[in-house]
């Protein structure tokens, strides 16, 4: 199947004074994919998505959404996209059903909002005032408003921020259902796990630039690190901290550097992180440690993920 580009962004720039919020971004999004932009706070996700939506004017660059220019065809574009904003509100005393009925009236074509309420599990809340809703219920209401015109593309900015893990999972299911109905989803998140689990393709942003863009799987495998093994040197109880610190300063990371499959060893106090690949990695490491007489605890092995990709590309962890 020939993928059809429905969003193209070429060399987008948006500066706020000295801040280069968006610093030369280009993207191509095809129909029916779930595309995610991920990056730390202030990396330019919202600025980018709102330039694409036409809600902000870029300094430079070309944006086309479904063949429309978001600035010149502002109102035509509103009719065929759905938008969930990172920061917005409804009037405190507006009821859920009033909001849906009102927003439906803004569009030439709208879906039956009662079914939408049902879909989003808001039916019992239809008579509630906006300010009586929980954070998660507000989010779902905004998703409903973004879907009310049966858009071709829905933009979701920080959809799951502030939700508990269970609500987050439910939201992922919802996003998948939206896509199944043929809607392209363009989302932003600062949860790497979310991007990895939910998105077909991910762009990683840092300081207003795309530093990597691909499927989550390719991003991780391009890193060449399939596995991460973490353990602590003899530090399992607080009484042993002193000894553990002593043991930690004695420990020589080079000991593990020679083990087959190991690519990188990081030590932080008594915690050691080994990056590497190969099925026998864990076994080899345990053997090497025992041979050297290093006593260790709490050893665990994890698949490398997008967080590692970000770390490898920027030298920083995505949080803080």
């Amino acid at each position, binding site marked *: 199947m020939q993928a059809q580009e429905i969003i193209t962004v070429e060399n987008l720039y948006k500066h706020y004074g000295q801040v280069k919020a968006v610093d030369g971004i280009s993207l191509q999004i095809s129909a029916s994919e779930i595309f995610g932009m991920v990056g730390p706070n202030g990396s330019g996700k919202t600025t980018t998505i709102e330039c694409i*939506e036409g*809600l902000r004017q870029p300094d430079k660059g070309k944006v086309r959404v479904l063949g429309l220019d978001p600035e010149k065809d502002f*109102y035509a574009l*509103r*009719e065929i996209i759905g*938008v969930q*904003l990172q*920061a*917005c*509100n*409804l*009037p405190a*005393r*507006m009821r859920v059903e*009033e909001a849906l*009925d*009102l*927003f439906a*009236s*803004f*569009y*030439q074509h709208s879906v039956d909002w009662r079914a939408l309420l049902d879909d989003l599990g808001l039916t019992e809340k239809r008579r509630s005032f906006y300010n009586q809703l929980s954070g998660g219920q507000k989010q779902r209401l*905004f998703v409903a*408003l973004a879907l009310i015109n049966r858009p071709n593309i829905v933009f979701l900015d920080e959809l799951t921020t502030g939700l508990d893990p269970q609500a987050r999972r439910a939201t992922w299911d919802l996003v998948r259902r939206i896509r199944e109905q043929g809607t392209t989803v363009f989302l932003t998140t600062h949860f790497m796990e979310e991007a990895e689990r939910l998105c077909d393709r991910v762009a990683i942003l840092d300081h207003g630039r795309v530093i990597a863009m691909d499927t989550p799987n390719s991003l991780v495998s391009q890193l060449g690190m399939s596995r991460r093994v973490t353990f602590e040197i003899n530090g399992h109880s607080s009484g042993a901290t002193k000894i553990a610190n002593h043991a930690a300063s004695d420990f020589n990371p080079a000991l593990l550097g020679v083990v087959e499959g190991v690519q990188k060893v990081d030590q932080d106090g008594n915690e050691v992180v080994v990056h590497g690949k190969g099925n026998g990695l864990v076994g080899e490491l345990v053997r090497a440690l025992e041979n050297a007489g290093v006593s260790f605890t709490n050893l665990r092995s994890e698949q490398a993920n997008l967080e590692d990709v970000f770390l490898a590309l920027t030298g920083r962890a995505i949080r803080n």
Partner: protein
Amino acid sequence: MRSFRKLFLVQLKLYLREPVAFFFSLAYPALLLLLFGYIYGNEPAPEFWGRNFGTVDASVPAYTGIIIGTVALMGIPIDTASSRENGVLRRYRATPLRPAIYLAASVAVYLLVALLGMLILVVTGKLIFDLRIAGAWLNVLAAFLLSALAFFAIGYIIASLAPTARIAQVVGMVIFFPMMFLSGAGMPLQLLPENLRRVSDFLPLSYVVRLIQGLWFGDPWAELWLPSVILFGIFIVGTMIASRLFRWE
């Protein structure tokens, strides 16, 4: 015009669910009328009013000026700037809703609210104080509309210029309260010393009171050309500026 109708109805409901705004635009002027009506009665006092009318007869059109001022200079700036500040207007902007429709629906709501406030005044006056009117209702209504639209434009200009809702509120109050006392809306100008009375010539609200009160007492439009022209000018220029300045965020 489905979105105009829905927006009008929803915003009207929102207004009525806001007890403080509701009280100040609808009940407060009627309470003033009751208070001063009981103190001064409504006996004709030609020596004071220059014609055969009493305190209540003169106060109903004057307090209509208070209602217009409250809605325009307190209600509109605060509501509009706070909707902008907390992101309600951003959410509207992400839909095909045109700013003109949003503004028209809001103005219609404020007009209705102000009209309701005036109606409550008139009914209170009629039921309790035997309110008299010499002019034609239609003229009074036309003057009300012109005054309200002129003042609403000022309210939207304040809303757009104020960076925050808090500042919009302060600016609205600073403009409204002195004007209320120095324009003849809150109390008769005859009670003010001569030099303060001069100030009223520079206050737009004075022309609202002069126009509505004049038509109420039965003066012809021809005699009221000055307030009419001034208010019409404010309406035209103000609306142009207000629609130019309006911003969603």
